[in-house]
Every structure is written in C-alpha cells, then in structure tokens.
C-alpha cells in the first residue's frame, strides 16, 4: 500500500513538472465545451423551400406567407414550373420543393381533394425526412386554420412534449459531449503513458524494481481517475454557467457512473499502451477504437435507429451505457435504481479491462 502511495506521488509529480499536460487538462474541456455544442447541432432549421404554385389562390398565398414567417423555413421563391424548381433541388440550392396542384383550394370542399406534394433532398437524410415532416405539418395547420369550420378536417390529436419542451437540440447533446471530452483525455493520455516510458527507457528501470504488477498499474490508473473526475466537474460547471443546463436528477448518480466509466476507459488505454511497441502504433490502435466508440455508442445517432445486429453489437461498447446515464439523469431525472443495468454493465467492463491491463503488463519481454 505504501509503495502504491509513493508511486502515485511520483506520477503526480511528473505530471506537475510537465509543461504541457496541466494546461491541456485545464483548457481542453473549456474549449471543447464552448465549441462543440455550437457545432454538434443536428437541429433541422432554415430548411430552404421553393414553392411551385399552380393554384394562385388565397390559400396558397397564405401558405407562402406562413412559411416566410416561420423560423424553420426560408422561402427561396415561387416558380410556375416544377422542372425549374427541381433543377434547384438537384444543384442542392434548396432543400425542398412544395408543389401545389391546380384548383387546390377549390377541390378541398369536394369529396376527392387534391393533395399537395413535397419533394425533399435526401442527400442529407435527417434534413430530408424531418424537413418534409415540418413542411407537411405546416400545410395541415394552414388548411386547418383557414378551413377550420369544417369539422372533418379537425386533427384529433394534441401533442405534449416531455423533458425537452422547447425541442432544444443542445440540451440533448451537451451531456453526451461531456463524455466525448472524457473519452479523448482518458483514452489518449494513458495510451501514451506506458509506451512513452518504453521509448524513453525508464520502463526497464521500473521492471527491475520489486513493485508488483497490480501496484504498478494501479499507480498509473488512479491519477487518470482523479483527472477524469476533475474534467467532468469542469465540463458540468461550464454547462451550468454557459448553457444554463443542470441535471434534473442527482449529481451523485452521474459521478458514480463517471467513476466506473473512467476506470474502464483508462484501463483500456493502459492495455493498448502495454501491448504496443511504439507511439505510432498505440495511437493508431486507439484512434480506431475511439472513432468506433464515438460513432457507435449513440452519441450522435441513436442506437435505436441501428439495425438489430448493430444494436446487439452496441452492447459491447462501454460509452453507450454512460451516455444513457448522462442523458437520462440530465434531461429526465432518472433515479439511480432505475439505471442499475447500466451501472452493472459499467462495473463489469471496468473489472474486465483493468484486470486485462494488469495481466498484459509483463516485466520480462
């Protein structure tokens, strides 16, 4: 135990002496938390639309006015030929074409009404599908407003939005972006640690001491543990100050999850560091996994949208569990007990990777 204490002290001293690392840990979360939420925005707004108006009725004009006034759409003009509008769509100059058939308003009072058609650009599939939905509901609303006296047109459904009533995409992303910051620091720094000791030759000196494997790895893990928790705290304070976002649920749940998650990720980093011969190799292996972790864990695109086999595969990526914990606690205020499967999974991963990291460290090559 005493050895462990001295080794941790050594790591902390080395860390303090380093000219770059303390600054990195202080500045990186701040910069990332200020910039990332501005960029990582998949909110659908400013959908640019052209209208092909073959009706020239008061209703079609009302529709154009409503569209111009809405913050979701930018009206890019009205055309009389569909082909002209389509060529704009083809050049990606607009996102959607709304085409109104001839005698549309008149037909609405008849048994077989004409339908408005919407064509969207599917190259950006989120914008294509959600923009189309927004347009469609705008058309329905406009029709209801002007023809509301006819009962049959009444929409039977009212919608209530829970947890994020203003539909602010940032509120959804910020808790997960904190995890991205933790992944970047708590994966890459441990990965470089042992391998750089190998390259400098100080590893050999360590190997001839009687320090047991467990103590050695623990002394490498614990400083990153402290660092990760500090980084998370820093990120949460920025989220609160800058974005006015604080967890609905308990902070204790978040930190319990973070304790387990950081242990998992830095254990994984040390494991890669142990089995790599040089920095280039360690970095590439880590890059490979980090990209997969970030893109497969539901950070940017939801896990539930993946095909069934990918959803099964996603159980193997530890960040997935912590992302769920963060979002649930932050937005929905989910309780600790309701999150037990996630916490259990993280405990399992932490035990697995840390044991493997200890076993993969060999004093004799």
């Amino acid at each position, binding site marked *: 135990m005493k050895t462990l204490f001295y080794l941790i002290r050594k790591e902390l001293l080395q860390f303090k002496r380093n000219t770059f690392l303390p600054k990195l840990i202080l500045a990186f979360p701040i910069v990332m938390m200020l910039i990332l939420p501005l960029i990582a925005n998949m909110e659908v707004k400013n959908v640019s639309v052209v209208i092909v108006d073959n009706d020239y009725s008061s209703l079609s004009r009302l529709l154009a006015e409503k569209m111009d006034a809405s913050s979701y759409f930018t009206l890019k003009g009205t055309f009389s030929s569909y082909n002209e509008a389509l060529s704009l769509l083809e050049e990606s100059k607009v996102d959607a074409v709304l085409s109104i058939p001839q005698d549309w308003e008149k037909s609405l009072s008849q048994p077989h009404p004409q339908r408005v*058609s919407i064509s969207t650009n599917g190259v950006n599939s989120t914008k294509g599908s959600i923009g189309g939905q927004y347009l469609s509901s705008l058309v329905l609303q406009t029709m209801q407003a002007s023809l509301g006296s006819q009962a049959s047109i009444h929409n039977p459904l009212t919608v209530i939005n829970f947890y994020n009533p203003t539909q602010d995409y940032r509120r959804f992303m910020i808790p997960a972006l904190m995890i991205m910051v933790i992944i970047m620091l708590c994966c890459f720094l441990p990965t470089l640690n042992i391998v750089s000791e190998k390259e400098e030759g100080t590893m050999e000196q360590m190997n001839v001491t009687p320090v047991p494997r467990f103590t050695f790895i623990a002394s490498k893990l614990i400083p990153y543990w402290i660092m990760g928790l500090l980084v998370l705290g820093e990120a949460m304070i920025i989220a609160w100050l800058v974005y006015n976002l604080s967890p609905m649920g308990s902070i204790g749940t978040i930190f319990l999850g973070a304790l387990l998650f950081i242990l998992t990720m830095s254990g994984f980093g040390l494991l890669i560091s142990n089995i790599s011969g040089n920095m280039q190799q360690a970095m590439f*292996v880590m890059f490979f996994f980090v990209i997969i972790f970030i893109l497969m864990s539901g950070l940017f695109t939801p896990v539930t949208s993946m095909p069934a086999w990918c959803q099964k595969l996603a159980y193997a990526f530890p960040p997935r569990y912590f992302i769920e914990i963060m979002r649930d606690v932050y937005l929905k205020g989910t309780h600790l007990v309701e999150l037990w499967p996630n916490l259990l999974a993280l405990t399992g991963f932490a035990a697995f990777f840390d044991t493997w990291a200890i076993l993969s460290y060999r004093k004799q090559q």
Partner: protein
Amino acid sequence: MTTFGSFVHKETLHILRDTRTMMIVLLMPVVLILLFSYAISTEVNNVRFAVVSPHYTSAVLEQVRHLEANPNLRFAGFIEPTEIDATLRQGKADVVLCYSADYDRISAGIEQGASMQLVADMSNPNNGTMATAVVQGAILSSQASLAAALQPDIRILYNPQMKSSFNFVPGVLGLVFMLICGMMTSVSIVREKEVGTMEILLVSPVKPLQIILAKMTPYFMISCLNLTTALLLAKYLLQLPLTGSITALIIISVLFIVLALGLGLLISVMVSKQIVAILISGMLLMIPVMMLSGMMFPIENLPHFFRELSVIIPARWYIAALRKLMIQGLPFLGVWKEMLIISVMTLGILSISLKRFNDRLA
C-alpha cells in the same frame, strides 16, 4: 532512379514490418464503411407506444389493434395515468397515447374536440418529432377521415430509402486519407528525427527531396489501395448510385491524397517530437475533418463564424464533391468549383511545405 527505388523499398519494409499498424491502416476504411453504413442512421422505426385510457371500450381497443399492425409501431402495453412519467423516464416507451373519456363519442362524430393526447419523450428532438409524426400519420390513416386525404404527399429524392450511409461514405474517405497520409507521414518523418536516423539519411548523397518523396510513396500507394476498396464496397455492397463521372472522382481523390501528404510534411517540418506531431495532427487534421467538413454536421447548421472557417478546410470541398459525384451523379463539370479549390489548395500546401523543408536543410 535506383537510389530512389531502394529508398521506397526501405520505407515499404518499415511499414510492412509493423503488422499491427498495417492491419489497422488497411482495415480501417473497410470496417468504418461497413459498420457505419449500417449503424449511422437517424431513421426512426419501431416507435414504442404505451396507451392510457379511462375505459377500454371496443373503439379504443380497435384503434390500438390497428396501430399495433403498423410496421413502424410497437405496442408497449396499457399503463395507468400515474405511470406516464415513469414509463418515459425509464425508456420503456417513446410516446404515450392518452385517450379522453369521451373518445367514443368524438370518433363517432357525436361530439367535437380533441379526443387524444400524445405525450412524447422529446429529449432527442429529432427522434421525438419523427416518432410523433409516425403515430400521427398512423392515427389519421386509421380514421379514414378527410384529414387523412389532405395529408401532403412527401417524396424524398436521390436517397429514397433514407440511407444515411450514402451521406457518410464520402466523409469516411476524407477522414481515412487525412489519417493515413497526414498523420502517418508526419509521425514517421518526425520519428526519424527523434531517433536521429534522419541526420544519417541527410548526410548520404541522396537529395533531401528524394528522401521525402520516397517516404511519401508507400503512403500514397496505401491510400490508392484504400480508395479502390472503398469504391468497390460503396458500389457493390452499399449500392451507392456512383453514376457521376468516375474520372472526376479519381482525379479529385488523388489530388486530396497529395494534399494530405503535403499537410503531413508541413507538420513534420515544424515539430521535432512525435507526441507533438500526434497532437498537432489530431487537432489540426482530425478534429476539423470530423467537425467542420459537413461529414457529421451539416455546414449550414454551423454558427456563422464556423461556417466561414470551414471554407479553408480542404475536406469540406472534397466531401462536397464526392457527394455530388457518388450520390447525385453529376458529370465532370458539375464539380469544377470543388476541383479548382482542391487543386489550388494542394499546390499551395505543397509549395509551402517544400519551401520550408528546403529552408530547414539549407
């Protein structure tokens, strides 16, 4: 030429010797394209809905049965009104459909007003919006009312199955080339500096420029190999249209590879430690490609400052050109602007880095 040839041979041996890196470099694009073409998707299917109703009348049950039959909806059970929050909070359902007590009379046309309420988990606004739209559409169609007949008809062009992979393949290519050409070249040159073997090479009668070219050649070849596998995968496995000009696709990709090599060289001239080279290429090459190139986040959604900034990110233009060629199927002339910008950038970066390289050694 023989000197150059043997130098290329030496560099190739260096790369081949490190099997783990080699595997990653060759497998990375394949794994990324395969995984993400399936996994990266924002489409909403399997919306789970729970139902709250004061009376389980036959009209309510019939509509629930009707909704259950919809392929995009999954029934998550009847719950009590007090359980709405808990059900959504624990993620057991995406939406809760609440029937009003007079649903029967309203649906029969005896009374008027809203007969149902939909409580949606909007923590992810995009998913929430789509889930609401799916349920709304299903309910309207079940009622066969006039409102259903009035629903606009939505068509999604160019990517009718809404595969996000179509959008993602160009991004993966941009990322992989930056990683392999930019990062690997810079790290491998700086490594020779750090170990001290660069000095030995420089005192040899080989011209410095030749040494650098020889270092770049294997990475260039690996990238061309990656381009080929990626295009074959895109065409035969993912069934991307690839109807645009293939010549333009190849020319612009080769230009982009050369540009990435130039960036790697530039970084390696400026720094002398491997770890610094890794951090700089990570921050200047990888993060901009992920964040500002339009690979994940649409450029038009960026705040004004970052939108302006993205103009100088080469990958932005490369990815835009690839999307036009691979998905929309434009001809050679359709991408002239991107082609011109990438060419100018390539020339600029190559000349700056070669100049700096010569200055350092002179």
